[in-house]
């Protein structure tokens, strides 16, 4: 007869506000098999867990049901407590009274009735629980970092410095990400290239890091500790070993009019190009869409001038297979383009630019070598207007969230403008200034007080062009919404930070979930910000939500330590929730009849054929066998098998059957 302990939690008053916990504990106490039933205010607290431990020891409990919050939250906590008290952790189950009952129903008889049902289901299930032990799985101690921005660079360096191998893949021809496009960085105004390039060089020279640029993830199989990644190294039309990076080809290439992605379309680049001077690796790539050779089959100037004959026109994409144990995603974000804003002219006015484009204007390696000049006629703008919240905090346009970094980089832009254009006047239209980081608020005050930037509290309603000037019409809500009209020479929109173009496809390749805005979803917003719901895959930087450099770096180091933690043990212990094909004595050996139709049902190819041979080697019987290393415990084969000979530990046929029975039969 099983002796089950039931522990009903008040969760402060999150549960007891609408569920009569005492009644639940008391009713369940009389069920067969329940030896101990009590309710307590905070089961997850230390006294709560000690209550469980002491009950197990004193009452000799064979099973525990904790009726509190979602098992997704505290199942590990209570299972660890049971283990410490000597009870096998898998004899402990949780009934979700908080998220599924007390928080979603009003106080009343029906709610307590439902709570009792939920506990009864789990009590009946526990009677069929078996004690299980963790599965040991080998760990490949190599990490894969997707995305070579500052987050990816930091994560790669941190992991590599713990002595493990790292494979860093970057979609663009060079690592550096958006940070390499910035001029100076807030709040200290130190030049972004100066603090970034040493790190990029360190990545290139680090013995533990293998760097694949102009490469994307093709596919991913396997599971934590045993991922198999296929990486597509897009053809650079160049033999990287021979190329010395002299840059002769990039100067001689006749096609010079392609808008440079690195300069956000302001500068021009050649067909064979190095994105920016400090690029790592400092080797060119041929843009096959615009290169005349690939369009008309003629030209080949680069091949002719190349001193080391490194050009390979017919170089194919290469698929590299890599066995990795953990993955850090740091693919970053992008900014909305002006054509998204009807009020500001549907992107018609060339002098209405995005924050990133202003960065390129202000950057010494930019198209204007650091001078602030208008894209339309190259004149230095006398009056410049910055618009905060251009697209962000705008539910009408489908982006309700705040992009977090714009207030800061607007203050920086205004400051840079005032420093570079003496006598220039700059305005900032804002709703609220969000400068919450260390030395952030002081930075914005400096822009206002020392550099004389006019902050106008209000939203710009419309921008239109009139005889060469951009008329910015808005209102100043601190002056009783007095209309404000500024004849500006240039307007900078701090557009919303949004997810990258291919973010959704990448998430589906990696089987991780993503939010409605295509940013990747963290396992828990507060307690597991760097993990995803898929074990072994971690997040770093702005791919999870718009984020500034300090936070991206901190998050990258966080993800790195998670990977290091994973690699610190030789074997990975995995939850024993896996499928098992039953075995019986000879001559039947198993109820499985060896039809092997389940093999095609298994997404992880975890089911193999096992043959029983007699003494002279003849196959008497062939049956299915599950490889514990590969099986992830999805149970698709279990529900498929006709003879029900395969079962999944933790969700066995008997357990699910009794759950349904207990659910519908009050005692």
């Amino acid at each position, binding site marked *: *007869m099983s002796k089950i302990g039931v522990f009903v939690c008040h969760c402060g008053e999150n549960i007891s506000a609408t569920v009569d916990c005492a009644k639940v504990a008391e009713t369940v106490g009389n*069920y*067969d*098999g329940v030896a101990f039933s009590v309710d307590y205010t905070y089961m997850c607290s230390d006294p709560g867990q000690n209550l469980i431990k002491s009950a197990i020891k004193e009452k000799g409990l064979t099973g525990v049901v904790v009726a509190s919050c*979602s*098992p*997704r939250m505290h199942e590990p906590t209570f299972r660890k407590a049971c283990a410490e008290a000597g009870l096998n952790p898998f004899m402990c189950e949780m009934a*979700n009274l*908080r*998220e*599924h*009952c007390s*928080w*979603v*129903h*009003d106080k009343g008889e*029906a*709610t307590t009735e*439902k709570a009792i*049902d*939920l506990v009864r*289901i789990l009590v*009946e299930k526990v*009677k069929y629980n078996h004690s299980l032990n963790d599965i040991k799985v080998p760990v490949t101690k190599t990490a894969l970092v997707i995305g070579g921005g500052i987050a990816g660079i930091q994560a790669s360096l941190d992991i590599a410095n713990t002595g493990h191998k790292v494979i860093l893949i970057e979609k663009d021809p060079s690592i550096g990400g958006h940070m390499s496009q910035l001029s100076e960085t807030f709040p200290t105004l130190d030049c972004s290239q100066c603090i970034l390039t040493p790190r990029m060089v360190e990545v290139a020279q680090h013995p533990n890091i293998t760097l694949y640029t102009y490469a994307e993830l093709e596919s991913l199989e396997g599971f934590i500790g045993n991922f198999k990644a296929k990486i597509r190294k897009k053809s650079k039309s160049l033999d990287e070993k021979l190329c010395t990076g002299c840059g002769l080809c990039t100067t001689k290439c006749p096609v010079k009019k392609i808008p440079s992605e690195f300069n956000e379309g302001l500068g021009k680049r050649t067909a064979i190009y190095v994105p920016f001077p400090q690029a790592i690796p400092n080797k060119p790539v041929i843009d096959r869409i615009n290169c005349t050779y690939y369009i008309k089959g003629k030209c080949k100037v680069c091949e002719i001038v190349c001193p080391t004959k490194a050009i390979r026109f017919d170089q194919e994409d290469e698929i590299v297979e890599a066995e990795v144990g953990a993955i850090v995603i740091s693919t970053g974000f992008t900014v909305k383009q002006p054509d998204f804003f009807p009020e500001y002219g549907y992107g018609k006015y060339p002098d209405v630019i995005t924050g990133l484009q202003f960065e390129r204007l202000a950057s010494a390696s930019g198209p204007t070598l650091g001078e602030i000049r208008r894209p339309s006629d190259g004149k230095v703008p006398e009056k410049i207007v910055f618009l905060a919240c251009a697209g962000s905090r705008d539910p009408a346009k489908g982006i309700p969230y705040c992009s977090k970094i714009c207030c800061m980089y607007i203050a920086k832009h205004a400051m840079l403008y005032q420093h570079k254009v003496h006598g220039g006047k700059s305005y900032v239209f804002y709703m609220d200034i969000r400068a919450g980081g260390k030395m952030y608020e002081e930075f914005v005050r400096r822009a206002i007080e020392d550099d004389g930037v006019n902050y106008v509290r209000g939203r710009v309603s419309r921008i239109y062009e009139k005889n060469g000037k951009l008329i910015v019409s808005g209102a100043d809500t601190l002056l009783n919404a007095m209309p404000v009209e500024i004849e500006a020479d240039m307007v900078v929109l701090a557009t919303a930070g949004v997810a990258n173009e291919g973010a959704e496809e990448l998430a*589906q390749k990696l*089987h991780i*979930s993503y*939010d*409605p805005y295509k940013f990747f*979803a963290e396992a828990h917003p507060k307690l597991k910000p760097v993990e995803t*719901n*898929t074990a072994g895959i971690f997040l770093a930087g702005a791919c999870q939500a718009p984020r500034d450099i300090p936070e991206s770096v901190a998050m990258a180091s966080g993800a790195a330590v998670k990977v290091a933690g994973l690699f610190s043990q030789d074997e990975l212990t995995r939850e024993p*929730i896996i499928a098992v094909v039953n075995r019986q004595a000879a001559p039947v050996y198993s109820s499985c009849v060896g039809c092997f139709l389940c093999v095609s*049902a298994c*997404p*992880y190819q975890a089911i193999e054929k096992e043959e029983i041979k007699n003494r002279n080697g003849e196959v008497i019987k062939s049956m299915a066998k599950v490889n514990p290393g590969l099986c*992830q*415990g*999805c*149970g*698709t084969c*279990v*529900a*498929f098998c006709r003879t029900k000979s395969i079962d*999944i530990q*933790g*969700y066995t*046929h008997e357990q*699910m*059957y*009794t*759950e*349904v*029975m*207990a*659910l*519908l*039969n009050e*005692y």
Partner: protein
Amino acid sequence: MAEFEPKIVAFVCNWCTYAGADLTGTSRIKYASNVRIVRFPCTGRIDYMLLLKAFDEGADGIIVSGCHPNDCHYTSGNFHARRRWIMFRSLCDFTGIDTERIKFSWVSAAEGAKWADIVNATVASVRELGPYSEYKKVAKYPEREVSHG
């Protein structure tokens, strides 16, 4: 007689709909309390016989819900489930079992509100259909004493 309160069983997958129901809880969205959730690792694990057992034991409605296609944590659990549901549902329809009482849906971990809507809609539609008396009539063996001990 008091208004008919249907008994609804919900078979949900742990990674998406169960998490979605958690989100409904954390966002404090109220919904009908007729539903009891049974957690499965994946919709692929939901066995059609459990649906029949649920009707046997007096359930008036069933919700079966899991991850959206392409979102399954195990890649293809929901695809296999969908194919089984298509065939099982047409067999039930063919034998006269009331498939209006079985609501199939995809609810992701971010769709807390959708879960509340699905529950409320199912409870309302089953309440309108009334108790599943035909099935209860054929399952008329006495209230079994269920303790397996």
